[in-house]
């Protein structure tokens, strides 16, 4: 079991890195004894990308700070992987520019951008051993044989694969392959790490562990990282900041908790969190937020006949007062119960309850009250209403 895991905890991981990597090899030391890779700021400046008539990225502006771990989050087809591939040099921009550090790299070849990429499929060369896979970028860079051996040893040790150097990728488990891909990325000491949904092929347990390991690795190396995922749990737990994308446009960029607690629009609200924020049609009259005539909250916004009310599943209570809706599904997750309701104001309202609470039955009409924060969004544009 343990060989499936990179490290038992982050302390072990940091200790291993500390012990195995001499500071001089990784360029920068921060005084703490931890060695760090070179790092660089990344910028997309007004990037547009279209494939024929299909506009994939529209006026895409994003800046990733030195050493930052930024997660590009969005549903399938939102353009996040295209943005990553543009940064890698695997796709050309239709217009706009891309910068790494103080250099514009828009028309540079991938090999000249000083980046390393971990692919969703890992993209390990099946005919090469693990060691050959990891040393491949160093050979291409003309690094000396002794240096290659030493750096590959370190990289394999870092990801806990020292004993498997002579195996071929086909002889490894999914988790081990993922670690080889990581070793191949870190061995280069690039300015930027690019990761394209690297955990999507792992099972849930391994994904959870590897999530923590990658975040710890990034913190220790301090390399600027752009990480693409559609999994909002990965985004919330790994990123220093999250950039949410939808239909080729950036929706909001910020710290995970900021996005969670103060979403810029209805899409971000519904996409972040598990379950996502409930969106219910309502109105504002005289400072009172109403759903189907029932007052559910107060606001200092001016009167509006049509507004979208966002409320988290944990902030809804089933009781005697509030607006009525019908229970359609009751999901018991063990530690909690998700009660899914339907009403004229929303097709899907999820209420999170502790298991001990008396649970309603399917078909039952219940009344919901809001016991927490409410977020108001413009019913037409979906943008947050600031009061």
């Amino acid at each position, binding site marked *: 079991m343990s060989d499936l895991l990179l490290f038992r905890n982050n302390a072990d991981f940091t200790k291993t890195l500390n012990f195995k990597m001499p500071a001089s090899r990784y360029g920068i030391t921060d005084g703490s004894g931890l060695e760090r890779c070179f790092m660089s700021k990344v910028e997309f400046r007004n990037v547009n990308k279209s494939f024929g008539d299909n506009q994939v990225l529209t006026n895409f502006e994003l800046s990733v700070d030195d050493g930052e771990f930024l997660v590009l989050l969005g549903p399938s087809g939102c353009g996040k992987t295209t943005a990553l591939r543009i940064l890698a*040099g*695997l796709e050309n921009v239709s217009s706009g520019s891309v910068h790494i550090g103080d250099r514009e790299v828009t028309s540079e*070849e*991938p*090999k000249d951008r000083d980046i390393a990429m971990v*692919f969703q499929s890992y993209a390990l060369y099946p005919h090469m051993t693990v060691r050959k896979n990891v040393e491949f970028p160093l050979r*291409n860079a003309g690094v000396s044989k002794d240096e290659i051996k030493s750096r590959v040893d370190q990289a394999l040790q870092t990801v806990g694969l020292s004993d498997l150097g002579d195996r071929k990728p086909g002889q490894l488990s999914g988790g081990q392959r993922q670690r080889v891909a990581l070793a191949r990325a870190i061995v280069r000491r690039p300015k930027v790490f690019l990761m394209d949904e690297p955990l999507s092929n792992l099972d849930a347990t391994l994904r959870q562990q590897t999530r923590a390991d990658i975040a710890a690795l990034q913190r220790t190396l301090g390399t600027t990282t752009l990480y693409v995922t559609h999994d909002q749990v990965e985004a919330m737990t790994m990123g220093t900041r999250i950039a949410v994308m939808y239909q080729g446009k950036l929706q909001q960029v910020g710290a995970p908790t900021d996005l969670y607690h103060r979403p810029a629009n209805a899409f971000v609200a519904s996409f972040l969190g598990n379950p996502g924020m409930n969106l219910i049609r309502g109105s504002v009259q005289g400072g009172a937020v109403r759903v189907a005539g029932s007052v559910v909250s107060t606001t200092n916004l001016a009167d509006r006949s049509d507004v979208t009310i966002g409320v988290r599943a944990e902030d809804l209570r089933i009781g005697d007062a509030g607006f009525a809706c019908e229970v359609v599904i009751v999901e018991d997750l063990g530690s909690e119960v998700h009660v899914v309701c339907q009403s004229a104001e929303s097709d899907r309202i999820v209420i999170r309850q502790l298991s001990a609470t008396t649970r309603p039955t399917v078909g039952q009409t219940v009344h919901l009250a809001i016991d927490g924060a409410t977020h108001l969004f413009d019913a037409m544009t979906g943008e947050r209403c600031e009061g």
Partner: protein
Amino acid sequence: MAKRTTSLPTAGVGVFRTKRDRRIGLALTLPSLALFLLFTYYPFFKNFQLALYRAAPFPTLPNKFVGPSQFFSIFSDAQFWDSVRSTVIFVGLVVPIGVFLGLLMAVAAHQRLKGIRVYRTIFSSTVVSSAAVAAVVFSTLLSPVSGYLPSIGIHAPDITSSSTWAMPMVAIVSAWQFVGLAFIILTAGLQSLPDDLLEASRVDGASSWTRFWRIILPLLSPTVFFTLIVGVIYGLQSFGQIDIMIGTQNSTFTHTNVLIYAIYRFIHVSADPGMAASYSIALFFITLVVTLIQFRILEKRVHYGQ
């Protein structure tokens, strides 16, 4: 016990659930089975029977049963070894040239360039031209009297009459034809390579040269291996170009008398089906052994991915 109502087929014999299914299955395979029996298996076994008889000196006399001695006699026949040598030279020229050029063109046509489909069509077109057309076109081009070269002022010797150049010329024409097939097979192989591996190698700093030798060629090796086997079989069975470009009347035919052509001559010139059958059996075993050797030796250098 519940009655089984599912109609989904299961593995093995269960595919045919009823006698009716079985009858339909047999009926559907019957046409191809009949064709194989008539045109492949019957001639194959008939050939072994023919090799047991020596041709009579006059067509009206019956052939004489001589058993396997006629087959074994060819190994002490200098003409047989000349034919084997010619065949080895012919295949040795056709296959490397065809596979190398096919690979070169497949890699070139794999680029995402404007108008590349036109080049793909041109590159693969040789496969649809018949051996006769290819031979006539090349003969016309190279003819010292009426060819294209004299018309533009180049007066080269008649290479089909040259004992030195006849074989390379015929091999080049055959290779030209094989290039189209090699191109199609290798292009299909290239298109099946995972894009992310090639992209990963670009990100890993590999030059085009490194990418080809260290990534593309090893990943393509099963396809190259298959192309080599197809090429060897094609080379061993090439006949039309030799017959049209050189022919039996040409003094240089002894230099281009590959096994398949020698077999043809035994039938149509010497009227000796027994010897033709013996040569055919020898060619069959040579093809079999060469293919087995290819599998034993080359397959070790082939990477079958995961």
